[in-house]
């Protein structure tokens, strides 16, 4: 191809402008490429925008960007489908971009990649790698979760947000890996073998959506075998909403989205705390009611006992009171009797008292020593005596003594 030379400032230099380059490329293409070519390849990343279709056509080692204007008039393929596209190579001068401008699309069957995956799936299924019985249960109360994914992006953010919404305590560790590209599968395999030994409760493998070749690492045969051999339970959340990747099939659990994987992996901490509290409440109420029952039984028995004691007590009290009353009455009577008797005796005594006798006209005679004289025998004529009467006394002298012939003195004073 001849390069256009240009003279600038009288110096000959071999450079051109970008516009000139692009224009040259366009010219070359227009002149050398056929205006209508048929290309066979696999569709991927198919999307329609503003009535036009944009996709990539690929084979095992190459790909090209395609655009189909007003695609409604032609067959609309799915990602992974093999098609034959009729169109022309187009070069957009302004943007310097090459594309294949497609006029029509014809379906020829499933895409190569897709077919290969199907074949592998059948083989691994036959080996029993996807069997349900071989799947390990996802732990109910994981304390440590490991996530194999890209450390940047929406996936890890969604997982962390979802987990933290219901669980503030579980530890989340991220193993950063490439999640697409030729080296991704091997990198993920190595990472999984190593983290399996670290004793995490559950491992989540996650990546966002994408086309079939974006997800190709998760259709890798080695990856499937590594996951199958792991001791730690694995949850797979790998992009495809409707189609299951081989990673999804071999994992112990599959989640449609990273968020769903997070829900599966983390337990509801708040619900559990409530659960424990509720159980404790039930225990408390049960024990408290038993205690109350026991207390009321004691009270009841105590009351009955007290009532009985009171009744008995009352009866004895009454009896005692009765007896006391009786006794006091008797005492009183006795007292009264005795008092009467005493009075009588007093009166009798009184009547017998010498004083009383004296009051009746008798006199007591005292000798000169003041001693009582009861016998005339004790007297001598001329003795000085005192006579004591009821109202006083007088002194006298014994003039004459006459003794009785009968009634001799018995008094000892003689």
């Amino acid at each position, binding site marked *: 191809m001849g390069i256009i030379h240009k003279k600038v400032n009288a110096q000959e230099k071999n450079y051109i402008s970008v516009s000139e380059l692009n224009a040259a490329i366009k010219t070359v293409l227009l002149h050398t490429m056929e205006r209508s070519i048929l290309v066979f390849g696999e569709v991927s990343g198919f999307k329609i925008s503003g009535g036009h279709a944009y996709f990539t056509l690929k084979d095992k080692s190459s790909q090209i960007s395609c655009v189909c204007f007003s695609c409604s008039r032609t067959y609309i393929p799915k990602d992974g489908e093999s098609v034959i596209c009729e169109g022309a190579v187009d070069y957009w001068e302004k943007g310097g971009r090459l594309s294949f401008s497609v006029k029509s699309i014809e379906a020829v069957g499933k895409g190569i990649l897709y077919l290969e995956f199907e074949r592998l799936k059948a083989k691994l299924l036959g080996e029993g790698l996807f069997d349900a019985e071989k799947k390990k249960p996802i732990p109910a109360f994981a304390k440590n979760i490991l996530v194999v994914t890209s450390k940047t992006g929406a996936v890890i953010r969604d997982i962390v947000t979802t987990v933290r919404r219901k669980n503030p305590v579980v*530890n989340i560790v991220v193993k950063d890996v490439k999640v697409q590209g030729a080296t991704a599968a091997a990198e993920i395999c190595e990472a999984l073998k190593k983290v399996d030994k670290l004793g995490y409760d559950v491992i989540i493998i996650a990546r966002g959506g994408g086309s079939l070749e974006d997800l190709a690492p998760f259709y890798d045969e080695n990856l499937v075998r590594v996951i199958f051999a792991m001791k730690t339970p694995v949850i797979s959340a790998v992009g495809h909403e409707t189609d299951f990747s081989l990673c999804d099939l071999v994992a112990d659990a599959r989640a449609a989205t990273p968020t769903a994987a997070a829900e599966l992996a983390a337990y509801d901490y708040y619900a559990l705390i409530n659960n424990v509290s509720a*159980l404790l409440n039930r225990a408390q109420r049960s024990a408290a009611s038993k205690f109350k029952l026991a207390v009321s039984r004691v009270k009841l028995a105590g009351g009955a006992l007290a009532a009985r004691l009171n009744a008995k007590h009352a009866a004895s009290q009454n009896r005692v009171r009765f007896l006391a009353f009786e006794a006091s009455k008797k005492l009183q009577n006795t007292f009264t009797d005795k008092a009467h008797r005493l009075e009588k005796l007093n009166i009798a005594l009184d009547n017998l008292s010498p004083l009383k006798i004296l009051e009746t006209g008798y006199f007591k005679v005292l000798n000169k020593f003041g001693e009582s004289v009861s016998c005339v025998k004790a007297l001598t004529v001329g003795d000085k005596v005192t006579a004591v009467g009821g109202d006083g006394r007088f002194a006298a002298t014994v003039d004459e003594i006459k003794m009785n012939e009968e009634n001799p003195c018995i008094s000892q004073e003689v």
Partner: protein
Amino acid sequence: MSFEQLIQELEKVVKQLEAGGSLDESIELFQRGLELSRECIASLNQSKGKISLLTDELNNLTEELKID
């Protein structure tokens, strides 16, 4: 015991309590229930709630990861 075992044990104790029994048994069961509930909460709170990046796959070394 794992949290799962602890909470199952607690449920058993509560059912026994509710089923009947003497006051002495009930008090004993309640104390056991109290102990178990404490252990349950402690077991849950063993995790530290850390978010980190695994920097050494062989030695389980991590560093804090900020998710925005």
